């Protein structure tokens, strides 16, 4: 069955499907119940599944994750909503020192099938702490898995796959696109495995690597470049930990050029690791250094200048020019 959905609707439908499929799946977070979340991602779930399964929590992020650990020990599969990226840090200790390590600490006796949903990225004109991209901090933490959706179809399937996964998954949702582009979502299709990247546009001159909010940007950049006769391949990484880079290596071996695009700060961001891995695996195929288009190594700016801070079409195309001219 095919339905037209925004990303917000697709996530909502995916969460609903996961709750129907497994009575152990719980939603937890601030305002996720009656209100349906500040972005309405959990809209209607409490009404249909009850207050025991869709829990409006006190305002304490560490406790959201800390109690999720206890619930997971008891056999539940908590899906925790962190209201905004910049509010995840009070829970950082529980995520890094407990959620990520308990399976290891317990010699595999205690899996932590917890999903941590985080609306991330900028572009919504918000005040401080509402536009951040903390993915590298979680991707750097052994024991966690980190994925980012970029499209309603992926959102629908990936959230269900993340909930079904037995490892803890940080699930990043590009909040700017929640209520943006709609897509036809076939809810009876067979999705690709969760921890795989995907080529979203084929090309032969240069490989653009993106995830979450920058996938759309890179698709636009490839379209613009094609009008100048340049053929750019766009790969949506989808999974940041583990990385699925074999398709990236295959692409770069063909194109010889790679540009990584993300909103997070450049230094020690995902682009750094990806560039390192590409140079290791594709050394002789590279015709230019791997370039990164990213946020600056600064705090996220006040919103009136965020569009200049964020990677945009011109900065991506500029990097493409520099790479091809190398």
């Amino acid at each position, binding site marked *: 069955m095919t339905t037209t959905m925004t990303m917000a609707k697709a996530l909502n439908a995916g969460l609903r499907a996961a709750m129907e499929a497994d009575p152990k799946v*719980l939603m937890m977070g601030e305002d996720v119940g009656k209100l349906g979340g500040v972005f309405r991602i959990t809209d209607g779930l409490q009404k249909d599944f009850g207050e*025991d399964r869709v829990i409006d*929590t*006190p305002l*304490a992020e*560490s*406790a959201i*994750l*800390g*109690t*999720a*650990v*206890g*619930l*997971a*020990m*008891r*056999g*539940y599969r908590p899906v925790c909503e962190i209201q905004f990226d910049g509010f995840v840090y*009070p829970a950082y*200790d*529980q995520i890094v*020192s*407990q959620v990520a390590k*308990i*399976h*290891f*600490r*317990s*010699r*595999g*006796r*205690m*899996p932590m099938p917890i999903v941590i949903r985080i609306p991330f990225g900028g572009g919504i004109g918000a005040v401080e702490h509402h536009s951040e991209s903390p993915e590298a901090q979680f991707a750097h933490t*052994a*024991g966690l*898995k980190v994925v980012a959706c970029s499209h309603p179809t992926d959102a629908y399937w990936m959230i269900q796959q993340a909930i079904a*996964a*037995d*490892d803890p998954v940080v699930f990043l949702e590009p909040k700017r696109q929640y209520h943006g582009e709609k897509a036809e979502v076939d809810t009876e299709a067979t999705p690709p495995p969760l*921890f795989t990247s995907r080529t979203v546009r084929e090309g032969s001159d240069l490989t653009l690597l993106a995830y979450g909010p920058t996938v759309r940007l890179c698709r636009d950049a490839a379209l613009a470049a094609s009008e100048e006769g340049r053929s750019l391949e766009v790969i949506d990484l989808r999974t940041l*930990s*583990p*990385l699925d880079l074999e398709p990236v290596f295959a692409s770069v071996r063909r194109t010889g050029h790679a540009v990584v695009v993300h909103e997070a700060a450049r230094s020690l961001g995902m682009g750094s690791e990806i560039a390192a891995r590409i140079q290791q695996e594709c050394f002789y195929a590279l015709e230019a250094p791997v370039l990164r288009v990213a946020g600056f190594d600064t705090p996220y700016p006040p919103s009136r200048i965020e569009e200049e801070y964020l990677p945009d079409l011109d900065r991506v195309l500029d990097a493409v020019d520099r790479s091809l001219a190398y």
Partner: protein
Amino acid sequence: MADPDLVQLLTPEGERAEHPDYAFAGDDDTIRSLYRDLVLTRRIDTEATALQRHGELGIWASLLGQEAAQIGSGRALRRQDHAFPTYREHGVAWTRGVDPLSLLSLFRGVDQGSWDPEATGFGLYTIVIGAQTLHATGYAMGLQRDGVVGTDDPDRDAAVIAYFGDGATSQGDVNEAFIWASVFNAPVVFFCQNNQWAISEPIDRQTRIPLYQRASGFGFPGVRVDGNDVLAVHAATQAALQRAREGSGPTLIEAFTYRMGAHTTTDDPTRYRLSADLEHWKLKDPVERVHAYLTRHVGAGEDFFSEIAEEADALAVRLREGTRAMADPSILSVFDQVYVEESAELAQQRDEHAAYLDSFEDATDGARR
């Protein structure tokens, strides 16, 4: 003059005391068996400290002085209850049937906790201060959802006990756990061993009011018990657990005790506290008062005490030999159980390191692995 805010059922001199709200539920045989647990737990602790001094353990966190708080509360648990410890609950571990050798292997650095938390009802040691109180609260919320709270079936109703110290009460996680347990009416007993010291910081650096009084601000009862009185601890914990199992929500128990030893074997308390305090607390010893009671009022004789002493000696030998026999894990085991579903990247890192180890000339048959 007895402190009216302190539940005490056995005085430091070994005399039974009455309390309007609490009574010890067991008989003299129960007290004999509690005494056995106290002695064996103290022996585990003594032996572990000695093993650390001999270089067999990397570190040890002594429970000396806190035996009654741990045995009294641990023995109040039912099989279906679940305990969430810090890293000092060796006595509670004993009451849950956890082999002390598995505590020693953790402090030796062989593993990070090898016992089965579900089978024993005893969670893994948690080193980040206070973090486990949230796990306990979440677990208790799970019990509520599993329908094993307030059913009136004593074999079915379950509760959770969360252990922490006086220092932990300053942690955000502990305060968040209090709030969550309160608003969700979770079946959890918060068991605070106030041993007066958080490494070098005295209790007055953590609080200006008695800790048990904090509970009222969160909306549930708090009680202070003589933490060196195994009977009082048992009675208060049993009552709080029963309240939780019935669906009446959380309780804070402050077990007022004293850390007779150092924080851990790396610590030197002579730098920050007076030996006179220690001498004062020695008069309130949790084991001696039970010994006095059993001798004076129960007629326990030399046979009884020597039998336990022999059992303690045998346990010590087993711990010494077992610890020395513990083999180090293989470096390649570090890759195991990082994930349920391992990634290709991690598998590759393991393979690369295995190949590196095997590349040495003396590495025949994987000798370096």
